[in-house]
């Protein structure tokens, strides 16, 4: 499949993403400059980490208004999978494609360390082949990763199943000690209501090879690949239908359930 990796001035994890997607996972990758206005031909888009536009004004604020974001918004609206990593997550928040905002870390320090996160939702292309409650080990490196949403918005997100990852300990317990930055309710990643746009502060691309200490991050990209291919092949192969649509093969013919839809 074909991934796009968006590059803003002062993105600095774009090469890592290209490396993992192309060299490690053997996928086609297109580098998308921030002035691009089209994402034609792409199956998924990654907004990498960094300090886009110097993080002037607020982290991600200027990047969120870049020309390419109009195309990302259109791509997301038709269900295209979009993953924002670290600064990419901040950009998606500032663009209004994801709910909430980032504050400076409550610990008053830039945090550069390894964390564990628990998978809270498998209703996104990036977590569809994972297991709810699965614990992943990935690094973080940020000064503004303190996820915040005012009370009513937070309730809405929680109830809609839009929390995708929470910081936890190695055994999957969500504790305040396991929270590296003060994020409300240990939120490490969220998705949009449809589930196709996901943002997280940890860096899956820095945890995709054994030599880097963890391969857990690779699971997110592999999930997206499986989901996109399953969706493409679904009409032909019924065993892929459920992965692609969230419906059992016996329900084939009903409208595909959008990502993020919940069981009654």
């Amino acid at each position, binding site marked *: 499949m074909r991934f796009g990796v968006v590059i803003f001035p002062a993105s600095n994890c774009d090469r890592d993403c290209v490396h993992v997607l192309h060299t490690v996972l053997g996928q086609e990758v297109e580098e998308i400059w921030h002035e691009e206005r089209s994402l034609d031909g792409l199956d998924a888009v990654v907004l990498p980490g960094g300090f886009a536009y110097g993080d002037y*004004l607020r982290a991600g604020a200027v990047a969120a208004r870049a020309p390419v974001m109009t195309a990302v918004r259109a791509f997301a609206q038709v269900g295209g999978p979009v993953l924002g990593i670290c600064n990419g997550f901040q950009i998606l928040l500032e663009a209004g494609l994801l709910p909430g905002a980032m504050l400076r870390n409550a610990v008053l320090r830039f945090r550069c360390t390894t964390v564990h996160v628990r998978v809270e939702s498998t209703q996104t292309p990036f977590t569809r082949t994972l297991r709810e409650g699965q614990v992943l080990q990935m690094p973080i490196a940020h000064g503004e990763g303190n996820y915040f949403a005012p009370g009513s918005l937070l309730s809405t997100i929680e109830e809609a199943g839009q929390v995708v990852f929470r910081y936890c300990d190695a055994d999957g317990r969500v504790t305040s000690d396991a929270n590296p930055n003060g994020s409300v309710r240990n939120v490490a990643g969220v998705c949009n209501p449809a589930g196709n746009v996901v943002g997280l502060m940890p860096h899956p691309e820095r945890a995709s090879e054994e030599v880097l200490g963890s391969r857990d991050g690779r699971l997110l990209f592999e999930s997206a690949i499986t989901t996109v291919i399953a969706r493409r092949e679904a009409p032909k192969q019924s065993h892929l239908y459920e992965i692609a649509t969230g419906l059992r093969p016996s329900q084939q013919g009903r409208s595909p359930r959008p990502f993020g839809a919940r069981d009654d």
Partner: protein
Amino acid sequence: MTTIRIVVTLKPGVLDAQGQAVQQGLRALGYESVSGVRVGKWIELAVPDEMTPDTIDAMCERFLANPLIEEWRVERDEDGGERARSRATPRAGEAGVGVLALPRSREVG
């Protein structure tokens, strides 16, 4: 053209880690009685005289501030006088919305 100043601050109750760090710095210098330090930002713009307050507020809401976590107030010079519009919540002990104005730097000690 008119020069306006937009003062953006975190909403009351939103954790201001930067303010806390600055407060710790002040205390380390011996100013131990200082508390309640909040850090914001100050944005100066030259705008056409006829630009409406609603347009200025729209710029703040859409870009210059993040309404989920921040509030702002707009100050402008008119005929040498100081006037201010505010989206900031008035705090106890302060005058009401509309008359808040920061001292200009040359008037400060």
